[in-house]
């Protein structure tokens, strides 16, 4: 197992490196670079060149890349072009805010979806199952921003029960109750979105297991249904679900730009969009790298968990992992 983890970690570093090369190239290939955007109105060509030199933007892209890489390795994320603010100063608060929002929504959706999906598999096409199906379809189909606006209009503008947007009321930063009130609506939107997948997945996975021969054997032996489900089927049914959870770990740091925009949540999804528009390469690269790290870690965790819960999987022993 130890050997396996080391091997995977080394692979991950390589993957991360390739991701950064790829995104760096892609970002620089997009038309309308920072010299077009951050060099402001009225600036002469000459002044523009001076500025570009100051920022190292006049150098060949591979050189710029290795400069960036060199800084990253030493933990320096760089500064913004437009106003020379350290990237970390902008980025870390938004990362924290996004993780707060996403983890609440994600954990909540797991807590609801997994037991409910499993329950539904035992009462296929019952009322509960139909309801869950309905919610799943709605969750899949409904655009988050639209659902968000509907919730805002009703619970905030009409009923005035909940705050419209933001993370805290101004002047109440750090107040837990205030944070919870602000979380309700965006978490509802996100949870509904996540719920759909996990509900379907845990239900399907359980159904599949319940049709296996060894379950039939257990039933034939007269084992009680409850025991069949919870003792015999559950652990096997959870294997793919756990893998999925590992793979989804990267949800924590991404994928919520729209929800963040609708609820004015000061997170990194919004930051990314804004920075993409102003071609702030250093911020974009930092966010990309961070997301990539989470994806890679998520994959690694998924693999390891898989081995832990599924005794049939043996890691690092020659054969296929």
């Amino acid at each position, binding site marked *: 197992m130890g050997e396996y983890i080391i091997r995977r970690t080394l692979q991950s570093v390589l993957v991360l490196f390739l991701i950064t090369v790829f995104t760096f190239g892609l970002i620089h290939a*997009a*038309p*309308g*670079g920072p010299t*077009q*955007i951050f*060099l*402001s*109105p*009225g*600036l*002469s*060509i*000459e*002044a*523009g060149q*001076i*500025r570009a030199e*100051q920022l190292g933007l006049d150098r060949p892209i591979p050189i710029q890349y290795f400069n960036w890489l060199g800084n990253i390795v030493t933990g320096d994320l760089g500064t913004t072009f*437009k*106003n*020379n*603010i350290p990237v970390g*100063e*902008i980025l870390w*608060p*938004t990362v924290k805010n996004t993780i707060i929002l996403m983890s609440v929504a994600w954990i909540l959706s797991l807590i609801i979806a997994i037991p409910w999906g499993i329950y539904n598999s035992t009462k296929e096409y019952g009322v509960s199952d139909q309801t869950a199906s309905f919610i799943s379809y709605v969750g899949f189909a409904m655009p988050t921003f639209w659902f968000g*606006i509907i919730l*805002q209009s009703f619970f*905030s*503008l009409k009923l005035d029960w909940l705050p*419209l*947007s*933001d993370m805290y009321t*101004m002047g109440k930063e750090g107040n837990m109750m205030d944070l919870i009130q602000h979380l309700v609506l965006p978490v509802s939107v996100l949870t509904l979105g996540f719920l759909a997948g996990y509900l379907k997945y845990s239900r399907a996975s359980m159904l599949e297991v319940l049709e296996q021969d060894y379950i039939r054997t257990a039933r034939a032996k007269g084992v009680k249904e409850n025991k069949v489900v919870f003792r015999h089927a559950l652990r096997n049914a959870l294997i793919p679900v756990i893998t999925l959870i590992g793979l989804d770990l990267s949800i924590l740091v991404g994928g919520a730009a729209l929800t*963040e*925009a*609708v609820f*004015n949540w*000061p997170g990194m999804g*919004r*930051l990314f*969009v*804004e920075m993409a*528009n*102003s*071609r702030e390469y250093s911020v974009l690269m930092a966010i990309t790298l961070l997301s990539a790290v989470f994806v890679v870690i998520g994959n690694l965790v998924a693999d390891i968990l898989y081995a832990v819960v599924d005794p049939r999987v043996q890691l690092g022993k020659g054969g296929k992992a």
Partner: protein
Amino acid sequence: MAASSLKWKTMIAGLSVMSVIAAGCGNNAGSNNTGAGTNTPVTNDGAANNAAAANNAGAVETAGPKKGGTLTVGTFTDIVMVNPLYIADTSSGDVAYFMFANLLDYNKDGDVVAEPWSLLESLPEISADNLTYTLKLKANAKWNDGQPVTAEDIAFYINTIKDPVAASPGISTFDKVDKVEVVDAQTAKITMKSVFAPFLNNLVTAVVPSHILKDVPVKELQNHAYGKDPAVTVSNGPWKWTEWKQKQYNILDKDANYWAKDTNDVNIEKVIHKVYADQNTNVQAIIKGDIDLVGAIPVTSVEAVKSKGLNVLLAPGPLYEFMSFNFNKMNFGGKESPFTGEKTRQAIAYSLNRQGMLDNILKGTGQALNAPFLPGTWADPGADAVAYDYNVEKAKQLLAEDGWKDTNGNGTVDKNKVEFEFELQYNAGNSRREQVSTVIQDNLKDIGIKVSTKGIDFSSWIEQNITPGKYQAALQAWSLNSPDPDSESVFSAKYFPPNGQNSGWYNNPTLDKLWIEGYSTTDQAKRKEIYKQVAQQISTNLPYVFLYQYGTPEVIGPRVKFAAEDTPVAALPYGAFFGVNKWWVEDAK
């Protein structure tokens, strides 16, 4: 996102020029107003505005102005920095507007004046040859660290902007200045390279404290903490900047030691400049009452906002939209531009239903114009410019006179075996231009011209099409930073791409000469006569089809109160806040 919107504007000589307006009602809206900007009075804003103001004032007639309270302004981009040397985006300009006193200010009518809160004691003394301006500062003008505002500050500010190494976006504002001399602590003398009549408008500007910045190497100025860290950002306006929570808000507090507090004692205690993700969230927030003012909401939200009883100001701003023709052969496969004939351009102008656009798309936020001078300004040519009413028959006739006939019966006119078809570009996501381009497509189809429309991502569009002058026709807008009519930099052959803003390669020597004459005299009567000729010439020759002046609807929440004379003036730079030093808020907390 819209910090990026601010744009592009070139450097060229002189004029306190103009900037391409991004998306209007799209996500880039409202990117007008650069640092040294300024503007034009619009006469017809009266009805809507005054009615609104009367409501407001009426609601508090018993109470009158109150001290204290918070004004929360909504926006959808964070500031970049509030150092006046480097302000180039709307948000930074907005925040700086509360923090800094200007040398001179605009009054309600768009005249440059020395207000009690302006740094200068009076309008500058201008020499007989119109080449030197003597500026006299108020003796009591102070920075909020207690240091006096001096002539050194003025000289430092202008000289730094002029220095290309400083990379200031305002460089073109002062490029007709030869030198600035410090006469004494309160007096500065500016010498011009040549007579430049609009110059007074360029003095509607803040200055920076030289005692803080003079020892910073010019190259390092943009990276200096001044303008980014409230603790070192010494300013001289009624409010001081106390907090910047990045990507979330800025806080400005009334300065108890403000030098002009005896004559300009502002009522509002705290101003919060709050960043939202986009215009739609701004709309929701003002309906909820989380914010008190939004400078620009989408036209499509106006009805919803009005139905909640909020005060919507619909006056057109200092911007006008146009369809630009391109005259460069390179854009038509080496063949002559189909727009070469004057009659052809006039035919296109006659074929467009501009009133229809105003009624159905602009919905009260626009008005037609026929020359590059805003209606209501002193250079407004009125009836002297040629007006093109919607007249399909006339358009067809003019096209035919210019040799365009449908010889092969395919529905599209042709000349010398070339079909009349072109591509009309605009920036994707700008819903106003998207709709207008469709109307143009339909209208031109009626006279046998085939138009394809194409929306392109804003920054790519500017870089690949507008700046190098590579397009066939485009929907664009200019934001006028000054009420002065000088527009040499967008129409003169001196300013061809890629270094100039005449991106349609328009060449009219008669007009080029008139522009120069126009700014080379300060005799107002003479100037008026010259710009009348410009208007006649340009509205006949049509480098563009001038479509309309337009604006962005401003919304003001119920807590904000002001007397009628302090109503925002959309056509002024920072006009959304005009009079804010006299406003007050109710239920002051």
